[in-house]
């Protein structure tokens, strides 16, 4: 069918909304509450457009096209309505942009600038809200909230967690956990997807920048940083580079210039994780222990299971997540090797993740000292690079330090959903057959779908596997396990849709196009490396020879494995 937008005839499919057609035609309509892939709620009224024969303006995000429809997205009435709505939001907003974490990257701020808001036209009472700083991972500032409801929808509909919801009514509405409690007292898994979808500064990570600077400035401390697989393909966005640009060497250079003493790679620990996890899988299969085994490297996912399916904790791999393994090795193997008192080492993990902030504080992760001392997100690192006055794009590429800096393609693909599974298969195949897989790329579990499954035959054993991302998608599989109906041997779960490249700590905003680009970059790293299987990593081999003996050894268990804790649902 054909419709007219701003006097230009364009083609449209039945069932499409005005917004979708306009977007395709390159006509920008501003939105605040719109969430791609979700049914529209039509609550913000920013995307209002004029449609001939409709008495009043209509929300383009929810309004379906019809043949011969005449739309105006830029009439005086539309502009005035949008400007008024922005002004109304500003009237009930702290107006502290200069000191806001989203200054310069805020939808409300840029809309106000775009629509030429030059004064606070409406003045009156503002909604009061309780600042919630109690959780180790996420901070909420309800007074900045514009009630677009996106966080609520992703928390319920995408992550199936439901830690927050709209409470109260009308002008007193606010987004909060049940009973207006703090996030740390409810079943929030700290995936941080709410932050990713917040158009303003109402949700943010708990910042650890200050603690990291303090450690750097403390001459007594040896600051060791590690960077996660997904950080290197995303942080460039913060400095105007193209999404998916691989900037590993620049990050290493930046960290050194900031004053970090040693820079290791979490990809190394990812390889180590694979050694332990593949070994655990084979052990579970051959000794007929609890199956399916489910990966444990996504801390949001682990906390989810502890809250909502504590009866299935035995299914979780006992492997610590890679950065925790790295931390444990830094403070034992590396410290011993270098003759440093581990007490003086400060391990900083640069992660695409919010939940890792909570994970690093889990008392069971560390013996005398916590394995990891601070976790900063991709966004936080970018801020620190800026404040350090570094021109990121002009930094030289530098290499990681030895020995915990070497990695293979298997470690690299931990950054995408399905990557852990693929990496584990590469090594499990070797462990079971003594040979590498004939084809290293395993396409059935690649791609951006929420659930990917396949069957692989190794040594006559048919392994049924699945890779799931986005917590909502895991429920069906878990219910099957509870009912004893699950046929899977091995399941990978990532709390965030599409895995770490779309983690809660990644540069904002996270759009489907960027996710695609970041994913491609991760596979590009894998493809470009000479070694693509964890067991080929020479530093790993050396680590086992010198320190850990073999996967699943007593020392390995002591330092690289963990246990889980039953948590309440409410």
């Amino acid at each position, binding site marked *: 069918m054909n419709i007219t937008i701003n006097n230009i005839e364009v083609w449209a499919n039945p069932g499409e909304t005005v917004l979708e057609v306009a977007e395709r035609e390159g006509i920008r309509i501003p939105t605040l509450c719109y969430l791609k892939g979700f049914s*529209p*709620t*039509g*609550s*913000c*009224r920013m995307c*209002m457009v004029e449609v001939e024969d409709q008495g*009043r*303006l209509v*929300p383009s995000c*929810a*309004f*379906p096209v019809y043949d011969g429809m005449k739309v105006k997205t830029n009439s005086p*009435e539309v502009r*005035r*309505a949008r400007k*008024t*709505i922005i002004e*109304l*939001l500003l*009237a*009930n907003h702290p107006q502290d942009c200069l000191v806001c974490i989203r200054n310069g990257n805020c939808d409300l701020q840029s809309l106000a600038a775009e629509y030429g808001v030059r004064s606070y*036209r*409406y*003045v*009156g*009472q503002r909604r009061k809200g309780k600042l919630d700083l109690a959780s180790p991972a996420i901070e909420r500032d309800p007074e900045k909230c*514009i*009630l677009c409801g996106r966080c609520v929808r992703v928390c319920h509909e995408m992550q199936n967690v439901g830690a927050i919801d*709209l409470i*109260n*009514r*009308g*002008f*007193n*509405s606010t987004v909060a956990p049940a009973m207006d409690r703090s996030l740390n007292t409810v079943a929030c898994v700290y995936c941080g997807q709410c932050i990713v979808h917040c158009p303003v500064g109402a949700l943010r990570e708990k910042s650890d920048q200050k603690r990291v600077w303090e450690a750097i400035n403390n001459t007594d401390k040896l600051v060791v940083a590690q960077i996660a697989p997904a950080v290197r393909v995303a942080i460039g966005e913060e400095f105007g580079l193209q999404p998916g640009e691989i900037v590993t060497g620049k990050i290493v250079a930046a960290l050194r210039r900031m004053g970090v003493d040693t820079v290791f790679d979490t990809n190394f620990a990812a390889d180590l994780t694979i050694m332990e996890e593949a070994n655990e899988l084979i052990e579970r299969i051959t000794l007929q222990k609890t199956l399916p085994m489910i990966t444990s490297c996504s801390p949001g996912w682990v906390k989810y299971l502890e809250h909502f399916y504590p009866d299935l904790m035995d299914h979780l791999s006992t492997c610590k997540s890679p950065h925790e393994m790295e931390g444990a090795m830094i403070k034992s193997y590396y410290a011993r090797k270098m003759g440093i008192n581990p007490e003086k080492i400060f391990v900083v993990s640069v992660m695409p993740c919010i939940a890792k902030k909570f994970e690093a504080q889990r008392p069971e992760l560390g013996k005398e000292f916590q394995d990891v001392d601070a976790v900063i997100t991709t966004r936080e690192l970018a801020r620190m690079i800026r404040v350090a006055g570094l021109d990121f794009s002009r930094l030289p590429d530098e290499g990681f330090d030895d020995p915990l800096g070497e990695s293979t393609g298997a470690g690299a693909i931990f950054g995408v959903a399905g990557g852990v599974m693929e990496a584990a298969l590469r090594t499990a195949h070797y462990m079971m057959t003594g040979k590498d897989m004939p084809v290293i790329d395993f396409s059935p579990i690649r791609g951006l779908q929420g659930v990917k499954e396949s069957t692989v035959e190794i040594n006559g054993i048919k392994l049924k596997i699945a890779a799931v991302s986005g917590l909502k998608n895991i429920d069906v599989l878990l219910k099957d396990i509870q009912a004893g109906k699950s046929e899977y041997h091995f399941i990978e779960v990532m709390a965030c849709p599409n895995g770490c490249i779309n983690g809660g700590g990644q540069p904002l905003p996270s759009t489907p196009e960027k996710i695609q680009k970041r994913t491609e970059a991760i596979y590009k790293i894998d493809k470009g490396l000479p070694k693509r299987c964890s067991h080929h990593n020479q530093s790993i081999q050396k680590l086992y020879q010198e320190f850990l003996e073999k996967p699943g050894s007593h020392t390995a268990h002591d330092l690289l494995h963990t246990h889980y804790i039953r948590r309440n649902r409410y």
Partner: protein
Amino acid sequence: MKDFLDILNRKHMDFKVTPDLFMDIIHESPDITLPAQTAQELREYKSRLTLEKTDKPAVIVGMGTCGLANGAQGVYDTFKEELEKRGIEAELISTGCVGYCAEEVIVDIKLPGYPRLSYARVTPKDVSNLIETTLINHEPVRDKVLGVYHEKSEKRWENLPVINNIPFFKIQQKVVLENCGIIDPENIDQYIVRGGYKGLSRVLKNMSPEDVIEDMLKAGLRGRGGGGFKTGMKWKFARQSEGDKKYLICNADEGDPGAFMDRAILEGDPHRVVEGMVIAAYAIGASEGYIYCRAEYPLAIRRLRKTLADAEKYGLLGDNILNSGFSFKLKIKEGAGAFVCGEETALINSIEGNRGMPRPRPPYPTTEGLWGKPTVINNVETFANVPVIIRRGADWYASIGTATSKGTKIFALSGKVKNVGLVEVPMGTTLRQIVFDVGGGIPDGRRFKAVQIGGPSGGALPESVIDTAIDYENLKEIGAMMGSGGLVVMDETTCMVDLAKYFMTFIMSESCGKCIPCREGTKRLYETLERLTRSYKNENDPEEALLRFQGMVYLERLAKVITTTSLCGLGQTAANPVLSTLHYFRDEYEAHLYERKCPAGVCKELLTYKIDTDKCTGCTLCATKCPVDAIVGERKKAHYIISDKCTRCGQCMMNCNFNAIYVE
């Protein structure tokens, strides 16, 4: 007690009463010949039901909510006690509301052979006299008489007004309310004997769903809940929508402050609503339905429960209704108190167990409603119109009213008017007729100022436009809307700025908070009005005076954006009370803004309290009552108010026994 079921199900009857014949027999279809004995029994029972032929007196007490609020329970109990004490055999019946709230408690007495006699303003103290004079001595208690019903009877009450001729009832036309205040709403037989369920029986036997929809279109029935959408069209859309299941919902979440039509119908004639719903369900093909009723109407809910149970017992609801093969299940949902749930998509969300927040339309409920299925939502009054359209014909119905608005409309008339009550008039009646003829004008010798129609979504209309004939289009033209039918009359002591502020307070606290223009905009509108009525002395920010002007400058712009961009009807009409008062009573706004005065003497902060030194006796009561010590004076000498100290609380004026305190 025997009922129709007992009479027609007697074992010795040589005639089988199948459910499909049930209604025909009761309504005496000429095609059916009953055994003589049964026919006789039936006829006797029916005349007893209508009180046409009675062997003992009947006392009928109006016990709707307004009756009860006026003490009807006490009157009923006293009658019961007195009748028992005196050993008088009489039937004591409770009925719904006849609409004349101002005259409650209304008690009707029906003596054998006499027409029904209606008494007004009855208190428990009057009961003994009524029994003595009327029940025993067959004489009227003249000063309590409201009127006599126009009925055929052997004997007559001499020199008493006929009820339909008294001004309150004279121009009314009772179509929907025909049974309210007449029948016992909890007795299904009383509804049936007055033609109840006849329409349903006809529909199920002789009409296709399309015929029913056609009839509604021909009758010109439009939704009585607000917008006035054509009921037949709505049903047609739902009928044409594909769906394995369809739902029908009765919106009884009447929340307009100052409107109580739906409650009166539910309390006074609930079977009418159920019958209308079953007919509608048949027309659209719905198998399940809900009545979504405010929890604030406990009596209506209690009566509805009994109504549904009785209708099911009679085979008029549930499986295989009247043996037609059509089934319809009806449930009651109690609303939990949210005005916005009157909006149909919010109501759907509420039934589904969510926060009652509206959804964007399209998709309209008729294609995607409750649980994603095609759903029709009509309000109580709309459904109550349906049976009579079937029973008396679409043409008859269409003959009432104006070109675009057919039938009658019920209004809840209240405020500064003599005859407060429920009024049913044909569409096309003027507001003046309702206020002055039916309502009897303004009490206490004051002047009419405005009438608010359509509740918080409507507008306040001044004398210059009240000769407009009421219909959907006309009201819109003069800046109001039909709404659900609240009519609140205001006199010169009502401040229109205060009224607008009152409605904004209401809308603001009832806004669901989903969309920005309604959530944030109504608050700012309210604050603008609040600033107009606030004394500069109570402003702690020097900017406030500037903001007061600024608010007024931006008021119309903001109102327009709220109207054009809000998500649902609540927001889209939220600014109406402000816009209409601003349009018709601009001078009052200006007095508040420029002169800082409230001409009506309502906005306290803008008033100056003064003591009339001639009247003041120096009793010192005001000075002791003043919470801020703003009154000074010596005992036995005239007192004075220190205006700067006075907070305008009004305590002094309230307590003065000599009317010595006045305001300017």
